[in-house]
């Protein structure tokens, strides 16, 4: 049994902002069915590049659901630039931590958020340095190394 914090349990049992959004301004998708985790993030963005609303749909474990729920709460009201600075660590911190083995579940949130914002800004996702290790998330070895370093 994973030792989940009360906040993780709360966000899993009572997820905030669940469901598809009508007429979203941006959508970010990550993960896949074969992978066992997937997240679809919907954003409303106003003229000042500020996120006014967010919602999600998630397929995955409790950490994945809680991370998604936390993410939507965290991004509401902040600017796109600030949103881009959010890391999976911030998501985990917001949840009072995730079990070590479950840190990767919060990476999905960070990834979907960046994809949504980049798509909104019309930026082509650039070829990333490193080798893609996880086909599902398009995660590279370098990203894993840096995530591991950040998380310890």
């Amino acid at each position, binding site marked *: 049994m994973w030792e989940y914090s009360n906040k993780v349990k709360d966000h899993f049992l009572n997820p905030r902002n*669940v*469901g598809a959004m009508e007429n979203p301004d941006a959508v970010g*998708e990550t993960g896949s069915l074969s992978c*066992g985790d997937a*997240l679809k993030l919907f954003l409303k963005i106003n003229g000042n590049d500020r996120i006014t609303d967010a919602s999600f749909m998630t*397929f995955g*474990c409790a950490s994945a659901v809680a991370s998604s729920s936390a993410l939507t709460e965290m991004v509401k009201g902040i600017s796109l630039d600030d949103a881009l600075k959010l890391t999976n660590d911030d998501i985990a911190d917001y949840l009072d931590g995730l079990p070590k*083995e479950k840190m990767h579940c919060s990476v999905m949130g960070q990834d979907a958020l960046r994809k949504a914002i980049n798509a909104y800004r019309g930026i082509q996702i650039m070829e990333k340095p490193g080798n893609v290790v996880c086909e599902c998330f398009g995660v590279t070895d370098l990203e894993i190394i840096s995530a591991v370093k950040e998380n310890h």
Partner: protein
Amino acid sequence: MKIVYTDNNATTRVAPEVLEEMLPYLSEYYGNPSSMHSFGGNVGRAIVQAREKVSELINADPDEIIFTSCGTESDNAAIHAALEANPEKRHIITSNVEHPAIKNTLELLEKKGYTVTYVPVDTKGRLDMDILYRSMSKDTALITLMWANNETGVIFPIQEVARKAKEQGILFHTDAVQAAGKIPIDVKDAGVDMLSLSGHKIHAPKGVAVLYVKKGLKFSSFMTGGHQEKGRRGGTENTAGIIGLGKACDLARAHLGQMDTTVRELRDYLEKELLEKIPSSSVNGERSNRLPNTLSIGFDAVEGESILLLMDQAGICASSGSACTSGSLDPSHVLMAMKVPFESAHGTIRFSLSTYNTREEMDHIINVLPPVIKRLRDMSPFWKK
């Protein structure tokens, strides 16, 4: 909150009768069964009786029973013994749905130069007998096949394979950790050379298990040390555990009928209701040839851990079909071997019952699960209404 425990293929409660039998050996009778003084001798006699009771469950002779510490040890010991008995042979046959105790042990042997054939199963979890028979050769030291699968409950044709193995002079071991106590087992009739069973799956405590070794087989110990177990397994005997296992085997034998009737009916009832009440759900494994207590059922587009945790809120204990507990995202190797589609493999739950379960408990599950699945599907990007 009342707990509805349907995770008996993982582990079982210690039967109160078993604990009662053990308690004297955890208090006043603490002697060492191999000691000279009569104080230890009492314990020795109780162990003799336990050995008889265990042997009766599987129709073995008491001498053929070696007590070990867990099913995993029995499996390791069986593989070790088979290879030592055939030092010149370098090939092992198994299935691709074995428990990690077999699977991981054989994978390590591959690194040491052994060749292992992993006979595949079909989408119903049935062994490919053709490949199995074609892979048998003069170089084969051992065939090891589980009697019944821990995840799906699917039963392998042990007797048939054992006969073929014997014809070709190949040792045959079966991991009967899940079969023992759930279906009748007769080692003589089945013709197996070695068989593993584990106490904590049949209402004995954790920490005690058995390796059956057929009389006459040249056996080399895996755990080497003192002369315990006639020199076949070193280490001071887990006396209380062994005595508890004796009682548990007695009870298991008495309950075999109930397994085949009451428990099977409860399982079938649960299965039928869940399939009816939850759309896009499906049973994994050959339904007509399963352990009577096991139901592996997949729900499309949702994820196992989330289901388990929501059921946990309602006091229901079960297992998922994913290897998530080990930090991996993959569905279990058993479901993958059966080529269960990803959308239902990730959402697979295993219910495994015991004689302690009741119809009320099944009704509780049947009430709780449909809204749980609906709620998770409502937030799943893969659920198409």
